[in-house]
């Protein structure tokens, strides 16, 4: 069973927190962690996401968690996508979350390393993500992992 850190100190390491594929029993913990971080309760969204990324095509889609089913301390979700706008198969990370009081201690890096290992095993050579321009925390996290601007530019417009 994954170790649960109930009273962490700044010196304590989270290195023995096991990172594993999510199961249905973890979804409640993911919902609770997301609510703690965003202030929004989105049970339907996370259940559907688990159905899509945690339960099917598990060689291409990865929903990884750190912690016990009753208390998830971090998670990351990604999938291999291919040929969108001519891009060869690559890994896409579109959700990562770490319990705020456990941040800057390496758990996010370990989650990201774990999903990169899954992507490599799936045969892709690059990992991509997209961050909100004003979200300096998540942007700085991915930069600290070595990510740089990629060859695509995101565009959008208002539908009148």
């Amino acid at each position, binding site marked *: 069973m994954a170790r649960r850190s109930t009273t962490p100190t700044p010196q304590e390491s989270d290195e023995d927190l096991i990172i594993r594929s999510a199961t249905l029993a973890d979804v409640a913990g993911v919902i609770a962690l997301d609510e703690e971080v965003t202030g929004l309760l989105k049970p339907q969204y996370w259940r559907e996401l688990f159905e899509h990324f945690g339960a099917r095509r598990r060689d291409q889609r990865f929903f990884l968690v750190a912690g016990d089913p009753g208390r998830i301390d971090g998670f990351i979700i990604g999938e291999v996508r291919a040929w969108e706008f001519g891009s060869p198969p690559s890994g896409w990370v579109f959700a990562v979350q770490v319990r705020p009081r456990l941040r800057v201690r390496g758990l996010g890096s370990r989650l990201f390393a774990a999903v990169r290992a899954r992507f490599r095993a799936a045969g892709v050579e690059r990992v991509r993500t997209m961050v909100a321009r004003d979200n300096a925390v998540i942007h700085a996290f991915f*930069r600290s992992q070595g990510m740089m*601007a990629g060859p695509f530019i995101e565009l959008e417009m208002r539908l009148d």
Partner: protein
Amino acid sequence: MKLQKATAFALYAVLELAAEPGRQRTAVEIADKYGISAHHLAKVLRDLGRAGLVDAVRGVGGGYRFAGNAKRLTLMDVIRLFEETSAEADEPVPPGEDQDIAAGLRFVLAELDAQIGATLRSISLSTMLKLVARRPWESVAEIKPARRAQAARRAR
């Protein structure tokens, strides 16, 4: 984007010092390494000291030591000490700026500014030092000649 000389010097100095936080370095040592004016760098280091990013160590063998948090301080935190990073509201409006075309151009350029700002705010000194250690520009340089050769073959 092109940085002012003082800004570039400040980034050189603060990154050199942050790379070895316990070590003190003189302005002359850093200036010699980069082939820049020690006099100009000394002035920049004084500004960095006033901003609390470096500590001046006085006396024989004195110099400067990094005094910030390399994981928290970003490139933008250093740059904004030396450059105007946002449009000043009290700047006089140049002639023609009230025309639609000028407003449209400002709108497009603001898109670039937003991108530049987000990038500079996302890279901490610690991340920058890791990037320097990886030397990613070398792999880009390796790709370019290969692409040029490929393009030349296609052109033949």
